[in-house]
């Protein structure tokens, strides 16, 4: 892949869900190495956008390209953490085994993990800051720790594109900042393009290079400075949102009119 290649390209894309059109005229391209928020109200089709890129849902119009190819199920170059992921993981699974499934979960047969693969699992746990919980059950960790284990699983097979669906929802502020700093570390490596669905862009602002926003049923992409402005966010969430720019150039968004 050349550095200039766009990782995600949508051209005139529309998708249907349950028989009716969810969004249309999706035309944008995300450059390699970008870290992009996907924002929009509930039910606007953010998760569906991910499913489109994963080849789980087909576009009803237009063309989609991911990492230079048409979307297809089983694309090992994409790492994915679904919404509410760890809620579905019961008592039965250790963190180490969950992460290992990112490598071995698609393999048939009983061959044990190679030493090399075990090393990759350890490294992924280490990078996500959860190495100390490797042998604990996923259900015994806090929400933020669970989310980091899930991200470790998505990263263990060295993807080029990382899709995180609402990784910050239902986390307290401290856990959110742990997850954000993990996303920041991954983004800083420069070889992974990241898309993050989030209700609240505030905690992600230091990391983001841009945002896809689902507004009026048409997805658009903008670089970060352009997307975060008051009118747009106010329109998007239907409640007044104020954007504050600090002396360092950081952006903050605030609810409420005052």
């Amino acid at each position: 892949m050349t550095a200039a290649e766009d990782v995600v390209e949508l051209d005139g894309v529309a998708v249907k869900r349950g028989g009716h059109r969810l969004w249309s005229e999706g035309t944008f391209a995300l450059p390699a190495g970008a870290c992009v928020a996907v924002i929009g109200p509930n039910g606007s089709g953010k998760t569906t956008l991910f499913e489109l890129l994963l080849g789980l849902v087909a576009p009803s119009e237009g063309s989609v390209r991911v990492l230079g190819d048409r979307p297809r199920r089983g694309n090992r170059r994409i790492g994915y953490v679904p919404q509410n992921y760890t809620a579905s993981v019961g008592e039965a699974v250790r963190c180490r085994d969950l992460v290992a499934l990112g490598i071995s979960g698609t393999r048939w047969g009983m061959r044990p993990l190679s030493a090399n693969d075990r090393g990759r699992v350890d490294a992924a746990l280490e990078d996500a800051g959860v190495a100390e919980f490797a042998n604990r059950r996923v259900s015994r960790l806090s929400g933020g720790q669970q989310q980091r284990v899930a991200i470790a699983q998505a990263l263990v097979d060295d993807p080029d594109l990382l899709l995180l669906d609402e990784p910050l929802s239902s986390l307290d502020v401290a856990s959110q900042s742990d997850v954000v700093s993990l996303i920041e570390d991954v983004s800083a490596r420069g070889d992974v393009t990241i898309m993050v669905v989030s209700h609240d862009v505030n905690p992600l602002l230091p990391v983001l290079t841009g945002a896809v926003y689902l507004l009026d049923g048409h997805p658009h992409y903008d670089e970060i400075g352009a997307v975060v402005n008051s009118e747009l966010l106010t329109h998007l969430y239907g409640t007044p949102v104020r954007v504050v720019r600090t002396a360092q150039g950081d952006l903050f968004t605030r609810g409420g009119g005052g």
Partner: protein
Amino acid sequence: MGVVAAVGYQSDWFDVVRAPFMVNAFVAGSLVAVAAGLIGYHVVVRRQVFAAHALAHIGFPGATGAVVLGLPVTAGLLVFCIAGALAIGALGKAVSEREVATGTVLAFATALGVLFGSLASRSASTVTSILFGNLLGVSGAQILTFACFTLVLGAVLAVVARPLVFASIDPQVAEARGVPVRALGVVFMVLLALVVTMSVQVIGTLLLFALVVTPSAAALYVTARPAAVVALGTAIALVSVWTGLLAAAMFDLPPSFAIVTIAVAVWLVLYAVSRARVRHGR
């Protein structure tokens, strides 16, 4: 002589244990214990303990129906359990959510089983042996069938185990990664049908849960390492069958009662220990 006169220490138990019907019981019980240990981990990880329970009930009319028609009980059980497995697999998660509908269907299956049982000659003993198992009446042919089922189960699981666990833990990610989640769901239900078909004949429809689900659930209190859970679950099931049969011979108890009691006791101890460990923050 009171009604409890039959229960008591049997001084000739060592001869009983060496009788051919007892040897058959040990072999058949061991095969079922191994099969239960292999599938139990997946049943618990998939959170389909209810499916095991449901299949046992669905098998009941199959077994009694086979007796009426003069067919082998295994054949009747297998047909009903596989049909039930495919139906539950097609309904997916919905079956455990629609409690009233599922409960009603299971009650009807049991009623059908009672009807077929009443049509069979020697109806009471037919129904009793299917509801509560008939380990002491296992034949050589049954043992051969059980051995084949256990081999098939082991061979298929050896191939699909990892993708199956992946699909059980998180169907969404597994599907995105290219794992055939739906097909694996069907394969799993058919394997469960094989195990239920075997277990009903040994431990009975009503007690099957304690041998197929309880040992693996107990093992999970101790460890979450997949291989260790399968090994420990199988060990608990085997020990339950062996000591249960010994106790049955020594004290002239129904084997199903003895086996289930031991499995439940092990579960209870491991449950209490794990509770205590959680409370002490370990």
